[in-house]
Each structure stands twice: as structure tokens, then as C-alpha cells.
């Protein structure tokens, strides 16, 4: 079942158009990875889907058109984004960051607290630091916090913008392992954009290649690795 579909998506900044007629799809239970070099338009794609920049074309979530919705309403529809560079609330405590993630929920404090406990179990390092200011956490911990915060809103689709940016490979592996586990055990659908192909490809159900705002190739990780030219250009071997 199609969870997210974009068609004819155009977006940019002022007079500069970055995305040109983007067509992509995420099905339920998939981890879809968008690979692209610097300037390809990865973050712009994330912003266009989340609604934080103006866009033309169509974005559909579970068949419903969300193109005209404001960002806060898109969150309410079940899309949560982990922005590039973590985007935590640095002055707020870890706990308040998580609470902020749940701010759109209406199902009562006890359920929210239960969810928080759950993520504390998934990410024990966050539990240790629950009263600490988020800005004082390490890069990897902040990334975990950002993911946990996004999950607090119980999204059906998680958008991740370059989670590996600025993180050591070991930490990145740990993070991707968590995402994979959530996908397998809870059926969380994920759309992830990355420059770092190696780590991301392993868990991807499907991969898109983004180049200067256009999808130039798509397929499963195996298919793309098998294609020589793509492998040489993007995967470096």
C-alpha cells in the first residue's frame, strides 16, 4: 500500500528552482533511501514533503492530498522529520525535547509518558541524561534524541535528513541498526536521504538516485549495485 507519493513536485528558494518534477513513492513498511551528492536537492526534498517551503505539484499521504497543508498539520497527519544537523532544542532538557515531540498528541499524559519510557529503553544513553540540556549532548546522542523526538508523535512515516552527517561510522551504524529494528519490529516506514551510500544501502528496500533535482535512477539496492556506471559514480567502487 502506497504511503507517500509525490508527483510533479517542484520546489526551490526564491527564483532558483531546485527540484524539477520529482516522482517518488514510499510503500508501507519500506525503508526508502534517496542518495545524492551535495547540492542534489536532498534537504529540499525533505522540506518540500514536510511543507516548510512552498511547493508545486502533488504530495499524497495514504492517498490524501497534503500539498496545501501547513507544516504543523502535516505532522498531525503522521509525518515526522529528523532534520539535518539534529535540530534539537538545545536549551531544553532531553525530557522536554521528547515532550515537545509529542505536543500534537491528544491521547493523554499517561500514554505520552509510556511512550517516553519506551524510547528511554531503546536509547539508554538518553535515559541517563534525561534532565540534561540537549545542547550538552554529544553528536550521536543528539541524533538519537532527534529520532526519538520524531517518533514521539507516533508517525506513520519518518523522514530522516542525512542522519550520518558529522557522526563517526560506528555511531552511524548503531543509529541505522535502530532504524532497521524499528522498521522490522514496528513496521515504521522510513524515507531517508544520505550522501553516505555504503551504510544506507544495506537496509534500503529501494533506492532513488537524485541528481540536480531530478531522479536519475531507481531500483533495489542490489539492482543499483549491479549497474556498473552507477556503482562507479555513486558507490565509489
Amino acid at each position: 500500500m502506497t504511503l507517500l507519493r509525490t508527483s510533479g513536485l517542484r520546489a526551490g528558494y526564491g527564483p532558483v528552482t531546485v527540484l524539477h518534477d520529482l516522482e517518488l513513492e514510499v510503500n508501507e513498511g519500506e525503508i526508502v533511501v534517496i542518495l545524492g551528492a551535495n547540492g542534489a536537492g536532498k534537504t529540499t526534498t525533505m522540506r518540500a514533503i514536510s511543507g516548510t517551503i512552498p511547493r508545486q505539484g502533488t504530495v499524497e499521504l495514504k492517498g490524501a492530498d497534503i500539498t496545501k497543508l501547513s507544516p504543523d498539520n502535516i505532522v498531525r497527519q503522521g509525518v515526522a522529520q529528523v532534520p539535518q544537523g539534529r535540530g534539537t532544542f538545545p536549551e531544553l532538557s532531553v525530557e522536554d525535547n521528547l515532550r515537545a515531540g509529542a505536543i500534537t498528541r491528544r491521547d493523554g499524559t499517561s500514554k505520552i509518558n509510556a511512550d517516553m519510557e519506551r524510547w528511554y529503553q531503546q536509547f539508554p544513553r538518553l535515559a541517563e541524561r534525561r534532565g540534561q540540556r540537549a545542547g550538552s549532548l554529544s553528536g550521536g546522542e543528539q541524533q538519537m534524541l532527534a529520532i526519538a523526538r520524531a517518533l514521539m508523535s507516533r508517525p506513520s512515516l519518518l523522514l530522516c535528513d542525512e542522519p550520518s552527517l558529522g557522526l563517526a561510522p560506528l555511531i552511524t551504524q548503531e543509529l541505522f541498526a535502530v532504524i532497521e529494528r524499528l522498521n522490522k519490529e514496528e513496521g515504521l516506514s522510513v524515507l531517508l536521504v544520505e550522501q553516505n551510500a555504503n551504510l544506507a544501502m544495506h537496509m534500503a528496500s529501494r533506492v532513488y538516485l537524485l541528481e540536480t533535482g531530478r531522479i536519475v535512477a531507481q531500483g533495489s539496492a542490489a539492482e543499483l549495485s549491479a549497474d556498473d556506471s552507477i556503482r562507479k559514480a555513486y558507490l565509489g567502487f
Partner: protein
Amino acid sequence: MELFLQRLFDGLSQGSVYSLIALGLVIIYRGTGHLNFAQGEMALFCTYVVYQCGEWGLPIGISLIIGMGVGFALGAVTEVTLIRPVAKKSQFAVFIVTLGLFQFLNWLDGAIWKDQPLPNSGVGSNQTSFPSLFPNKPTDFVNVFGAAIKLQSIGVFLLVLVLFGLLYLLFNYTKLGLAMNAVASNAESAKLVGIRTNMVLMVSWGLAAAIGALGGVVFAGINSNVNLGLMFTVFIYASAAATLGGFDSPGGAVLGGLIIGVIENMAAGYAEEWVGQELKVGVALVVILVVLLVKPSGLFGTAKVERV
């Protein structure tokens, strides 16, 4: 000893006014990063409104609620129509807009209510003095160690503490407070978490203006009149308070205001020959300068690292 206590409480009372205006400045600065130059004049406008309600015979309690309501509306409308569109251009443009608002509101007050101190029974006012929230006849005082402490001074001081308590609850135990903190911390991420940032900004300004209105009414009550120049010096004292406490710390604003009120009063009293009434305002200047040169983030503010 009695003189000391008297001066202390006068200082706390005066400082409470500074705290109230400073709270407004801090809430706006935290939420939006701007200094609202018109904070004092917005408070003044609401104070005139409260005076007008008194002229129409309303009791001070009701008048105050109306005044604070007007303040909230004024702040919210200002944010939406004047600040938000201009904030995209530059900090300087926002500063100029608040400066223009300062001028406009001050002119408007004079245009509507005349440019003399009110009430002025000679010009046919119904009230003999500006209504005070607390009993302030000459007989309303308590004896503390031989000093005559006005009930009004105690009342004003307690009012600030109560208000601060309420704000503390707001910021730490409510969803709105959390949203305001989140927007102040990282506006982009706040959007991604589903917070309606526009609404939060509007409410921040409204709240700040309403608190300012309270400050204006309290000050006019202490002064027994309202006049066009009432808030000029209060604004600079409040700015000194916010600077001292840290421009993004509400607790700092309250503490800063009280400290400055006390210092100012003590200096004017004990160093009468050298400071006296004339150079009191110099206290504010000195405080601002010293803080900005020694520890710019104030007592409780968070230091910002400027990225080149």
C-alpha cells in the same frame, strides 16, 4: 534602621515596576530575538485606557482586566501586522518599526487624552487620583521594626512574586509554555514538531504587552497620576534590569528589576549629595555599561556564540 527598611521597601516597590516591564521585554526577546522599544509606550496606552475606565465609573479590578486585555490585543496585532513582515528584512528595520510605534503611541495618548498629567480635577476629571490596586492612603502602612512600610509597597512586591510564580508554572508545566520555549530555542524544529509557530509568536507578544500593562497601571497607582512621560525612564530602567538579569531569563528580569530598584533608591537616599534625585537615572546607565562590558549575558542569561 527604619530609614534603611523604608528605603529598601520603596526600592522593592519601584523595582517591581521595572520587573514587570522587564518581563515583557524578556518574553519578547526570548521568543523572537527582538528588543521591543515600544514596550513602555504600549504599557502607557493601556494605563490610559484603565484611567478612562475609571472615568466611566468602573472599579479598578474590572478596569485592570480590560486594560490587560487591550494590552494583549495590542501586542498580538503588533506582532502580526508590524513585526512579522518586517522581521524578514533586518533587525534594524524591526528596531525602527518599534521606534515608530513608540512615537505613535505616545502621540496617540496625548491626542486622545491631552498632554497634561491626569487626573486633573481642574479639567473636569471624575477621579481625584489614578486608581491604585492597593490601599494607598497615608494611613495605610504597617510598622516593621519601627519603619512605616506602605501597604502599597508590600502589595506591589507580592504581586510581582505571584505573577512570576504563574509564569513559572506556564513555562514549565503547560503545553503552551513548552511550545513557547521550543520556538525560542529553535524555531525551525518547532515547526517540524507540529507547533504553530506563528500563533506562539503572537501569544508571546500579547502576553508581554499584557504584563506591561499591569506594570504601567501599578506605576501610575504609585505615582497617583498618568502622564505622557511616565514610562520614558521606566523603560530604560527595565532595559537595565533585563540586561542585568539576562535578556532571555524571566527570573533574571524579576531579580534584576528588584536589584536596580533597591540600588537606585539607596543611592538616591544615602548618597543624596552626590546622586540625589537628579542622577538616579545614572544608576541605570552604569549598570547597563558594567554588565555589557563584564558579562554581556547577564546573571542568568545564556551566552550566544556568534558565528562569523
